[in-house]
């Protein structure tokens, strides 16, 4: 039996020596990247807001910027405005998404697959398409306001922001509520009903309380997304000033980087708070999820079924309307006067044009791969390897969700605009910024995937002589490839569509499609902005389709997201 002479073949000593340090090395590398590309820029912003000229000495310390902020009623109002739209959006979105999720999980309406798909459509488009569509429909010269009802009313301002943010945040809130409601045992409801409670009582006393963590978490996420969003307010906000647009205005109009930094810090406070609520609640809600959740649902009574079908149809119709309007807007000659079809808006009157789409595409591919790769490694280290100080790494990995994209972008200018940071002004800074800005969700989804890998599989590999690297390459990576590709799509999508994180970073050499949309709209080329949006949507859809083709069904379902 001992024919194979085991003495001759052993695990190589050098690879084991490397193995001893590789984990520490990689952990430190990932932590370093996060500190350097996330905390360092934020640190720069803090310093600039609290110290004159951004020079860190005790005599330079000053609250002058904050005094000026709160002492100028107009600027200070941006804080109130931000809270106002965020709170209203939070309430509306959470309620809308809750009933939608309820319909999908607790009733037997038909067309759930369709409703589900439609609900997630906003994720594939730049966040501003909501605003673009609303202006075409409800602007001062909107199809519905000016031409259908002939009213002199327009959507610019707080209402425009709220409505577009609701549409934009809807899928994000829905993911959470859908998960919560499908995780709670429906027999709870039935038990209550059998005890004589009325349907309404069951709903208020059982269903809603059992989903309370989901509601809180969805609310916090919506609040965070809204308060940090830049695209929608800048397009549809009109004169209505919110924190994100105020940061941009302070920096670009008045060259007041210090005030921009100050407003950034003020914006960081609520967004970090919302993040903490979400973080805390998400941890809690795991306890509520019982394994006994039952997919079977009793057939709903007709009036209930119809009610929810109509409700879901209305919500879906609004979302479809946004997309249809933008796509239509890009093809008609002069909205809303001349409906003849044309391709002229696709000859982009901009310097970027198609090359911007192309650049966006390549950069997004890089972001997709690097983002998926690094979040997988971070997830692996956090979930499986748990080296010394793993809590710090975890915190660093989930923190980006708390940082508004615009603030991160501003931080990048402040921190990295030095001759020795060779990557500044190249596409790499955009790649890095987008990867970091979306790190949270990528890591969380990696973690939840890696959790499913039986720990003994790795131990089996180790005992068979595999080093950490070969275990990762041969097992962890292949076993989490679905998560990897989901994350790839997620990062790709975010990079194609994100505005706030990169608006400060695009340059003469790097034009991005999502930013071109803003500029086109700014210059009054609304139809071409619609056309550019349509191109972005098409590319994202193409990528989703391609991935579904390669991966088989069910893998391209990417949900959730954070950051504006």
């Amino acid at each position: 039996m001992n024919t194979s002479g085991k003495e001759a073949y052993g695990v190589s000593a050098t690879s084991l020596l490397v193995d001893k340090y590789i984990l520490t090395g990689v952990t430190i590398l990932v932590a370093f990247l996060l500190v350097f590309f996330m905390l360092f820029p934020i640190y720069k912003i803090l310093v600039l807001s609290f110290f004159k000229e951004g020079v860190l000495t005790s005599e330079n310390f000053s609250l002058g910027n904050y005094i000026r902020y709160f002492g100028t009623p107009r600027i200070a109002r941006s804080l109130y405005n931000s809270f106002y739209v965020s709170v209203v959006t939070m309430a509306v979105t959470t309620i809308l998404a809750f009933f939608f999720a309820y319909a999908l999980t607790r009733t037997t309406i038909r067309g759930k697959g369709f409703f589900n798909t439609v609900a997630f459509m906003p994720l594939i488009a730049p966040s501003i398409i909501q605003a673009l569509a609303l202006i075409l429909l409800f602007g001062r010269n909107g199809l519905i306001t000016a031409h259908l009802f002939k009213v002199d009313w327009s959507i610019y301002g707080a209402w425009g922001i709220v409505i577009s943010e609701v549409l934009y945040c809807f899928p994000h809130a829905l993911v959470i509520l859908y998960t919560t409601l499908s995780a709670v045992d429906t027999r709870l409801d039935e038990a209550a009903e059998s005890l004589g409670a009325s349907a309404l009582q069951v709903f208020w006393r059982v269903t809603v309380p059992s989903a309370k963590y989901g509601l809180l978490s969805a609310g916090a996420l919506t609040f965070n997304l809204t308060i940090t969003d830049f695209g929608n307010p800048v397009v549809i906000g009109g004169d209505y000033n919110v924190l994100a647009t105020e940061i941009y205005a302070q920096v670009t109009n008045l060259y007041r980087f210090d005030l921009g930094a100050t407003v950034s810090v003020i914006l960081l406070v609520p967004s970090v708070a919302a993040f903490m609520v979400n973080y805390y609640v998400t941890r809690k809600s795991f306890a509520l999820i019982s394994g006994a959740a039952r997919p079977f649902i009793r057939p709903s009574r007709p009036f209930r079924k119809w009610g929810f079908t109509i409700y879901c149809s209305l919500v879906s119709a609004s979302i479809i309307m946004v997309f249809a309007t933008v796509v239509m807007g890009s093809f008609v000659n002069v909205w809303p006067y001349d409906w003849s079809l044309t391709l002229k808006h696709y000859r982009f009157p901009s310097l970027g044009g198609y090359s911007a789409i192309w650049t966006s595409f390549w950069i997004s591919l890089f972001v997709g791969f690097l983002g998926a790769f690094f979040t997988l490694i971070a997830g692996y280290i956090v979930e499986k390897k748990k080296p010394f100080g793993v809590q710090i790494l975890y915190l660093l990995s989930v923190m980006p969700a708390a940082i508004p994209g615009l603030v991160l972008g501003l931080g990048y200018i402040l921190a990295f605009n030095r001759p020795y940071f060779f990557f500044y002004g190249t596409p790499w800074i955009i790649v890095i910024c987008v990867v970091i800005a979306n790190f949270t969700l990528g890591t969380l989804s990696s973690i939840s995937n890696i959790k499913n890998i039986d720990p003994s599989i790795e131990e089996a590999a180790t005992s068979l002589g595999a080093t950490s690297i070969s275990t990762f390459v041969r097992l962890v990576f292949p076993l989490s490839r679905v998560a990897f590709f989901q994350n790839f799509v997620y990062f790709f999508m975010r990079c194609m569509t994100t505005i706030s994180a990169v608006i400060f970073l695009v340059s003469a050499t790097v034009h991005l499609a999502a930013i071109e949309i803003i500029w086109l709209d700014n210059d009054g080329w609304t139809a071409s902005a619609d056309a550019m949006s349509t191109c972005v949507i098409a590319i994202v859809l193409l990528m989703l389709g391609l991935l579904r083709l390669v991966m088989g069904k069910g893998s391209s379902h990417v949900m959730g997201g954070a950051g504006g």
Partner: protein
Amino acid sequence: MPKNLRLRDLTKVFGTLVAVSHVDLDVQEGEFVCFLGPSGCGKTTILRMITGFETPTSGEIMYDGKVINDLVPQKRDFGIVFQSYALFPNMTVLENIAFGLKMRRMPRDKITARVDEILNLIGLKDWRNNYPAQLSGGQQQRVALGRALAPNPSVLLLDEPLSALDAKIRVRLRAVIKRLQQELGITMVYVTHDQEEALAIADRVVVMEEGVFKQVGPPIEIYKNPQSGFVADFVGISNFFEGQHQDGIVRLKDTQFVVPQAQSLSDDAVILSIRPEKIDVLDPGKPGKDLQSSNIMNGKIEVVTFLGAVVRILVSSANGEVIVDMVEKDFEQRQLNRGDEVDMYFPPDAFVVYPLE
């Protein structure tokens, strides 16, 4: 010189919990040692310390005369089989088995030869190109066994390898493992909470409770001479009686037993234990010839359970409930029923006596 595995005063503490407490053991080369104990008693922890996935808090693990506490798992050259099989789902049977060989950079042709050898050994030649998900539980565990054996480890460690399988396959695979061990002459350390399995398979059984070794010995020894109530209770089934001992006689609540071996104890308060199959059910009105009349007790049959070759009856008596195993044939002849009154005989030398703790 034989390569022995030794545990020296081995201790593992998790926070405040002492999972393994000062244990010593010598495992001879080629020996089959089985750790037996209830869930949570520290069996897995010992195994993981041997494999190198946990570091001992104190004490030493030695192999071949060398302390290996700080040796990385890859260098220990021990094979492991897990309860959950832990097969690599993204690899075929063949690739699973070849994995350890690849990691050792064995040349390709040698790997092929070795994998064939292993496939024959575990009898899964025709399944080589299947993925684990396409195999039954029993087959998967055989692949896991083959995978662990492929690099020719000096020690094979198995952590409850059969507990996830159903009874029939469990018994069959048990035989496979035993046969492999004997053919290959490999040292095996086997963990289980199933006393029957432990007794059936091991050369030596280590009974554990709360991180300490309660008794170490060959299966027969453990079964026949449990040195504590815990062992008697955990290994097989026992009836226990509390009583006062005086001059070879133990007084119970309602009766008394002659137990000569109790005299070796200094304590007055004792516990008697007796295996169910040692108790005789007497024919009514026909007391046996040379029986100690004092060791007979009367009771009423409460429950009858058929266990195949034996029938287990639960008898309620003035001294509590007594479990008695009868050979099925006897039971049938006597035509016993629930509610019947029976006399039970407790042979004096069948008792094991412990002091009341």
